[in-house]
């Protein structure tokens, strides 16, 4: 297969996935329609996460801070300042970009376990800040964005993000953009350097690459995509609370990505979808559902350490990005 053939296949696969998600809204029953909208937002978060974890090999245990930066960047400006949803979305992205660059300068001085701990501590600080400034954030209780706050006009059309169809398609646009950005990055020179750093940082430096700069770019991209997902979450589901800044929301993307396939572009979607439905189904008949899901995850990861798509790539489809 020539490189041009590979490119064609890769583009067709990704376009196909986006088209399938678009068509799903016409056939899914109402309940699953809503679940899929949520899954797409969270998959966009996981896609941002895997740029850092899967491709660059940096395991962050604090990505909830970037998700929360977007969530509050959008939520607070819309709620308190009366900004329109698009402006709030912009504020969320800007908050994520600024935070991830700052975190990068601190955390990227460390590697391995120290990096995990530093990112976890910084995220804990963000979580505590969201509780401390309860006057504005209402802490755990959170703020609720009303339907009016989530409605805006663009080119003469009124868009109400609290309606199921608008919400679904906005989530799809977010996910599609995240996926295509991720794909473009990993196929670009920067993406090759990220993988090289993951495989052997010392060697990468001795090939003339500024590895700190490359890692900072990966972290900024990853944090900003995570924030875009957080901002969308606040606007589409009308809620911003401290739970989303907690350690759980740092662990979830790791689990989604591990299950779906860490260094794959589509693995985050598959992992998020699978785990969401695993929790959905098991919580229906047992209160120990998290334990059950945990056991299933361990078994799956033991069976295929590279996740579902990673296994597929190793065995059959070597061209998967």
């Amino acid at each position, binding site marked *: 297969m020539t490189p041009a053939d590979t490119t064609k296949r890769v583009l067709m696969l990704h376009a196909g996935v986006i088209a399938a998600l678009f068509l799903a809204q016409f056939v899914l029953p109402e309940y699953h329609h809503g679940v899929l909208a949520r899954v797409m937002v969270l998959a966009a978060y996981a896609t941002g996460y895997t740029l850092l974890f899967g491709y660059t090999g940096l395991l962050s245990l604090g990505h909830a801070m970037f998700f929360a930066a977007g969530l509050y960047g959008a939520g607070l400006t819309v709620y308190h300042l009366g900004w329109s949803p698009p402006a709030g979305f912009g504020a969320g992205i800007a908050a994520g970009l600024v935070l991830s660059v700052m975190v990068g300068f601190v955390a990227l001085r460390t590697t391995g376990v120290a990096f995990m701990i530093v990112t976890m501590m910084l995220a804990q600080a963000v979580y505590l800040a969201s509780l401390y400034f309860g006057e504005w954030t209402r802490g755990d209780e959170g703020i609720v964005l009303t339907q009016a706050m989530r409605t805006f006009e663009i080119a003469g059309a009124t868009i109400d993000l609290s309606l199921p169809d608008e919400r679904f398609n906005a989530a799809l646009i977010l996910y599609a953009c995240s996926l295509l950005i991720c794909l473009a990055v990993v196929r670009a020179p920067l993406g*090759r350097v990220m993988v*090289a750093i993951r*495989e052997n940082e010392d060697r*990468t*430096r001795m*090939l003339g690459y*500024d590895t700190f700069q490359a890692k900072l770019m990966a972290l900024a991209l990853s944090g900003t995509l995570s924030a875009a997902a957080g901002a969308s979450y606040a606007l589409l589901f009308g809620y911003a609370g401290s739970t989303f800044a907690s350690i759980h929301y740092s662990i979830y993307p790791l689990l989604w990505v591990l299950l779906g396939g860490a260094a794959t572009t589509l693995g985050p979607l598959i992992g998020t979808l699978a785990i969401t439905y695993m929790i959905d189904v098991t919580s229906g008949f047992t209160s120990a559902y998290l334990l059950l899901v945990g056991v299933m995850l361990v078994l799956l990861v033991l069976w295929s350490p590279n996740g579902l798509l990673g296994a597929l790539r190793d065995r059959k489809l070597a061209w998967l990005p």
Partner: protein
Amino acid sequence: MAALEPLLTTRSLSRRFGGLQAVANVDFQVQRGEIRAIIGPNGAGKTTLVSLVCGRIPASEGTIVFEGEDITGLPAHTRVLRGIAYTFQITSVFANLTCHDNVALAVQRTLLSKQRWGRLDRHALTAEVMAALERVGIADLAAVPAGKLSYGHQRLLEVAMGLALNPRLLILDEPTQGLSDAEIASFCDLVRTIAEEATILLIEHNMHVVMSLAHAITVMNNGAILAEGDPASISANADVQQAYLGG
């Protein structure tokens, strides 16, 4: 005057590891276009000295001048762009990537530094990758993951990655370790052709290789330079015989 200036000069270069003086006050010069061998017993400080030159390890004291400029404070990746390439003594390739992709990382670096912004030219990339693999004689292994290669072939891949950086100074740290006699012979031919474009700093234990390739030899012992000269004078040197050649 500039033409006579050495390519590389170190002045009172030192490096300590805790209490151990791995490189001690070394004044060392490499002339343009030469093949310089560094020999010495295990632990003499050869790898540490060249690591200071390429920037993998920071110096404790002293200065390093390359092409007339003080590079002592420059990070390793900038030194690579200035033309210093290092091939690792302990093979350090990207085991999970194919040989092609290993070399492509080096080629990408040189292509991008030439054209700064803009798209990478895929055809130029592939052509240069294959040219580098062909020079070391492993072009047929381009699609094989580097980790699956024999040790000797991994050494050759290291050299291909170094070559693809278009270096002015290519540092080879024990490149023939693990190669068969036939492979060593063709490797020596390769080094001679590289030497037409680049200056070579060769750390080598195989005395046959050293004597057939080197224009000049530096002998190290206990972190210091014990002797320096052309191959004939070094093999006749009594101190060297005692310290290294087993007297």
